[in-house]
């Protein structure tokens, strides 16, 4: 087992087991199936988006607009349903809107050649703005029952559709990244896009596919979030990108691209879910939790750097 995991992933596993043990010791009801499902359910939309974000960051890009696309698709759904449209049609239109948003990102990044950091930062504002136009300062609800059931009720026993989707995507995207030729291309381009281009890889195509997928998954998760909460507002899913990017980077994915694994991200997701749960049990407010996540984000990049320095110094002496 240990030979399969990188040192970073072994560290994550140890931290995960620690949080698990602490949680189990402090709260006896922690290890029940109901609590475990709850644990996943509370952050399910973020952790699904984190899976596709893993591929985007390994490709040496970043998508800061994911939370705004989630908000936009949720707001659009609320708007359409309240305008008298059927739920099924509204879902299709929301997913199409997500794809369109992804296409805008993809064209500007892959074709025009503007850094994804700038494009998706502008779209973080822009797409959120569109969501605000749609719902203004209202809270839109009155969703069809089948739609809210989808977000709140179990589909296989007590397990809701979103958790199933998470595990299916985890395996699917994990296989794509580590076992398919597309995954190899993602990694090679992430390591050095210039070299990849000269080796005849279609860099623009790979990046386009990733930004389309990222936006589509985000739009879908926006709908799942709306279904789980039962209503949408202009600031639905606001600021989620922080948690999502933290999950990916804590998982050992390099912000400079080319390095990272789905196993690492899965472990980091488990850690963050347990930490949030544990902090909730200790009655820490949401703001302190966000602060802890922010600290984790910085530490997840700072620690490997410091360790590398230490190793270099020891090698020299």
């Amino acid at each position, binding site marked *: 087992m240990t030979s399969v995991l990188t040192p970073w992933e072994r560290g994550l596993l140890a931290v995960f087991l620690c949080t698990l043990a602490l949680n189990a010791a402090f709260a006896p009801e922690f290890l029940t199936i109901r609590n475990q499902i709850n644990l996943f359910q509370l952050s399910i939309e973020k952790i699904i988006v984190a899976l596709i974000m893993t591929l985007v960051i390994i490709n040496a890009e970043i998508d800061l607009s994911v939370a705004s696309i989630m908000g936009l698709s949720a707001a659009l759904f609320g708007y359409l349903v309240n305008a008298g449209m059927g739920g099924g049609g509204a879902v299709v239109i929301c997913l199409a809107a997500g794809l369109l948003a992804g296409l805008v990102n993809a064209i500007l990044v892959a074709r025009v050649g503007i850094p994804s950091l700038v494009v998706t930062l502008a779209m973080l504002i*822009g797409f*959120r703005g569109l969501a605000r136009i749609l719902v203004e300062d209202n809270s839109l609800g009155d969703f069809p029952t089948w739609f809210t059931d989808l977000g709140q009720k179990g589909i296989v026993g007590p397990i809701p559709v979103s958790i199933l989707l998470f595990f299916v995507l985890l395996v699917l995207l994990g296989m794509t990244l580590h076992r398919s030729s597309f995954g190899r291309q993602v990694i090679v381009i992430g390591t050095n896009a210039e070299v990849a281009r000269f080796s005849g890889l279609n860099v623009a195509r790979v990046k386009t596919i990733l930004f389309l997928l990222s936006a589509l998954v985000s739009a879908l998760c926006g709908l799942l979030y709306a279904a789980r909460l039962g209503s949408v507002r*202009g600031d639905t899913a606001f600021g989620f990108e*922080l948690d999502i990017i933290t999950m990916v980077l804590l998982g050992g994915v390099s912000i*400079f691209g080319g390095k990272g694994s789905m196993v690492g991200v899965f472990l980091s997701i488990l850690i963050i879910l347990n930490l949030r749960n544990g902090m909730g049990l200790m009655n820490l407010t949401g703001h302190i939790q966000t602060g802890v996540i922010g600290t984790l984000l910085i530490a997840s990049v700072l620690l490997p750097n410091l360790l590398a320095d230490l190793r270099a110094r020891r090698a020299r002496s």
Partner: protein
Amino acid sequence: MIGLLTRVSPQTLRFLALGLALLATVLFFATQIEGYLSARMFNRISTSAAVVLPIAVGQAIVIMTRNIDLSAGSILGVVAYMAGQTLGAMPDLHPVLAVLLCMVIGACFGALNGILIAFGRVPSIIVTLGTLALYRSFLVEWSDAKTITTASLPQWLVDLPSASAFSIGDLDVRVTVLLALGACLVTGLALTFLRSARRFYAVGSNPDAAVMAGINAPRIVLTAFIISGAFAGLSGFLFLAKFGNITVVAGLGFELKAIAAVVVGGVSIMGGSGSMIGVLMGALLVDTIDNSLTRWAVVSEFWRDALLGMLIMAAVTLDTLANRQLNRLRSANGDQP
């Protein structure tokens, strides 16, 4: 025409384009909103742009070094709150000291960012995305859910936003506007004439070459973040003066407004270029649009974010495409690209 395009510097072209955009915006809204071209509207826009300008100036310096400071809005909020608290407790504090205090608090938060980025070698986007949340959480804890109210502030601060420095005809130039303009001017002069300030450009345009040339790049980056923090602090002071009531959400999203002003003003997001005149015009354009939209009957105020995002994207896209086209024209003419 093509010969002219290649001879005029891209910088001049950008100022012309920005000037035209600003003029077009003002003329457009003048036809749409009754009483738009008035002294009142001038005051409204100039005092509002004055709050954004310092934070944009700081952001511009950070972006010149090929970094980004997403935590500036949170720093603004923390400083506005702490300054309000301090002035409430010590109403006799000299105004100049109050401004300095704001800039020092801001600089401390900026220094923490800078140390992590320059010496911890963590990318600025990661550090400031983290501290954006961290500083805001700190403010929530620090404030203990209490808000600063105008009543607790000394009278000079409450009067400050409506105090005029001088008048040109009907138009009053407020003290706060002068303060922001001064900060922008001093920075602009320093960036143009000071040898040490040119190093921000050197580090941003080619970090490796800068190190080869004997520049201590980490120290320059640290300095850029300290300056950005200090200017966010100055904006925090102006924010406190303008609004008086400070809650924990003060300055939320201001980093995005500042980045918008900087990018629209032609500071390259890839680092190494940009000017304070551009930043000033960018801040004016963004704020003019922002303030005019709220008074325009045709669209609701909820359009502001969407238009801001589109404005940034349009500016960056135009810039990228125009630069590419210019370089192509130049190399076709046999000039150095």
